[in-house]
């Protein structure tokens, strides 16, 4: 404390109980509360006339003791007043704490706390633009649209310290909250006037640091009206998705255009009943797979007629003997019943063999058909370097996964937030103008 300047602090004795009352805000104080008997005193009266005595001795200990100074909201502020305010929703009381902060040059600010959720609050002088719609009402201020969250009567249930306005236990205002996380706009209406204030959500740790409080801030319980969503970056994630999707689409189109789709083998064969794989296996004429290592498309198409064909293939490199085996099946059934015509399966099957190096190859083919059915005529076609849409489909799904998962979690967070509002059942989108 420096010794120079006009003093602001002064002491008095409570006319009700005689205890010492300390005042910190000079002539700004209109009312002060005796810390001992909780009487509300007229700070402007030379005798500190008692304005209200409090029967109910419910005591609440402020988490930031009166007189504590901290560096917060752009300046040094001292806690000079504290009140507990209560709303009743569906028979349940909810109370929050309000700290009045003072700097003799910068004026008054507020801090509020509800179950570990803190807000830094300033008075708003502008008149927000109100819009009332059927489902939701909004208030617009400084280009930010706030959505109506809750309306309630807020009653002052406990006061300590001094205030630059008339304060009494039992004072009631009509409070309306509008949210645009991390901000909240509140209107408090009395018989005389409506006062607007703007809150900004701050972490309890920041309050602890600002006021150098011992220990650590109590953990926040639940989700608060204007608590910023931890999924706030979801918009950027979707933007990244769009960019990656465009890149993927360009790759897909590029592949579609550049793929050679070169047919290197085609042959027609017949599998008779009794063909049972190995016993009727044969090899095809050799064919050349050119270019760089790339995929091979193997198509089996049969004249299936309520029948099936199963083929064991081996793609064998003539020079190295390296063999890639695939087993494929095609089946086609059709008929009609009470629901009309039906069909199942298809007459052809398509397999992709990935990463086949160039070279001379042949196929070993071991067909099998129903032992008691008809002979099946089938065609085998081999194409080199065919684009595989499946690959892009899988890539797209993998790309979609993170933003979709996070969007689901963000929606769950928003639904938790709005559960506590007057609009628990309205569909809430996470869009807000305050983002970025």
């Amino acid at each position, binding site marked *: 404390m420096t010794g120079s300047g006009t*003093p*602001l602090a002064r002491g008095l004795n409570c006319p009700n109980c005689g205890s010492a009352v300390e005042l910190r805000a*000079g002539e*700004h104080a209109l009312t002060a509360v005796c810390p001992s008997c909780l009487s509300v005193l007229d700070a402007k009266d030379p005798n500190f006339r008692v304005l209200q005595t409090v029967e109910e001795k419910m005591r609440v200990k402020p988490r930031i003791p009166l007189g504590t100074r901290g560096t917060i909201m752009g300046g040094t502020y001292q806690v000079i007043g504290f009140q507990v305010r209560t709303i009743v929703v569906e028979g349940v009381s909810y109370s929050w704490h309000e700290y009045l902060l003072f700097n003799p*040059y910068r*004026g*008054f600010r507020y801090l509020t706390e509800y179950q570990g959720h803190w807000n830094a609050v300033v008075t708003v002088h502008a*008149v927000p633009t109100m819009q009332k719609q059927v489902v939701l009402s909004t208030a617009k201020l400084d280009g930010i649209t706030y959505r109506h969250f809750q309306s309630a009567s807020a009653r002052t249930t406990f006061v300590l310290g001094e205030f630059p306005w008339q304060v009494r236990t039992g004072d009631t205002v009509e409070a309306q909250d509008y949210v645009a996380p991390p901000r909240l706009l509140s209107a408090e209406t009395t018989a005389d006037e409506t006062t607007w204030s703007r809150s900004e959500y701050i972490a309890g740790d920041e309050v602890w640091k600002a006021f150098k409080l011992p220990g650590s801030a109590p953990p926040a319980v639940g989700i608060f009206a204007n608590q910023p969503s931890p999924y706030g970056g979801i918009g950027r994630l979707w933007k990244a998705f769009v960019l990656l999707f465009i890149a993927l689409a360009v790759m897909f189109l590029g592949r579609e255009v550049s793929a050679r789709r070169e047919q290197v083998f085609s042959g027609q064969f017949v599998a008779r009943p009794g063909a049972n794989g190995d016993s009727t296996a044969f090899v095809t004429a050799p064919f050349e797979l050119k270019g760089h290592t790339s995929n091979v498309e193997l198509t089996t198409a049969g004249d299936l007629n309520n029948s099936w064909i199963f083929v064991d293939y081996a793609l064998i490199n003539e020079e190295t003997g390296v063999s890639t085996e695939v087993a494929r099946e095609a089946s086609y059934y059709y008929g009609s019943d009470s629901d009309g015509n039906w069909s199942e399966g298809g007459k052809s099957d398509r397999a992709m063999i990935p990463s086949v190096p160039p070279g001379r190859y042949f196929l070993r083919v071991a067909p099998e058909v129903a032992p008691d059915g008809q002979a099946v005529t089938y065609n085998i076609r081999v194409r080199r370097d065919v684009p595989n849409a499946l690959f892009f489909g899988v890539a797209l799904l993998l790309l979609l996964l993170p933003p979709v998962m996070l969007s689901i979690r963000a929606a769950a967070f928003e639904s938790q937030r709005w559960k506590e509002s007057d609009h628990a059942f309205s569909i809430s989108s996470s869009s807000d103008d305050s983002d970025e």
Partner: protein
Amino acid sequence: MTQPTANCPNCGAPITFLWSSAVQTVCPFCRTVLVRHDVNLLKVGEAADLPVDSSPIQIRTEGKYKGRNFLVVGRILYEYERGGWNEWHLIYSDGESGWLSDAQAEYAMSHRVPTPGNLPAPNDLKVGNDVEWNGNHYTVATRTVAHYRGVEGELPFETWDKSDVPFIDLRSRDGRFATLDWSDTPPTLYLGEFVEWDDLNLTNVREFEGWPLR
């Protein structure tokens, strides 16, 4: 800025004017309210003692707002049923006059503008009503009857022998305000905006014990 000097007709103390166009001043020694008539200073009454207050602004406080330097030369303390506020009269370096209001350390800068001809009647300016001036929208916020609780320093008009001052305060959507002072008819219109302490770049302010400025 000229600083003409005269002598208090009551106590003979030298009166130094900070503003050459001052209409009224208060002798800082004997608190006599003096009004200028041509070159003479006329005693019109005695100013009440100003109650102790905790405003950091004082006569001769200097500041700079939006690039314009100003000097505080006078003050009116208004009082109404729920408290009071200061209107500090200030002079910009170009000689223009303006006001810095201080209500519980909430600050606003304003200046007088010509009263528009199409002013609504007082009864049409009910709380919540919208008014448009020069394309700017204002909403009537409060109607207050205040009175002069005290004066000091140099003012652009006479306050002596005036009592109740009906005010209508209007707010805009962007933090500006308008005040209609209905102590005369037609009323005087002031336009202004709310400001923060740091916006004012004040020097020579009143310092408070235990609250260093830096």
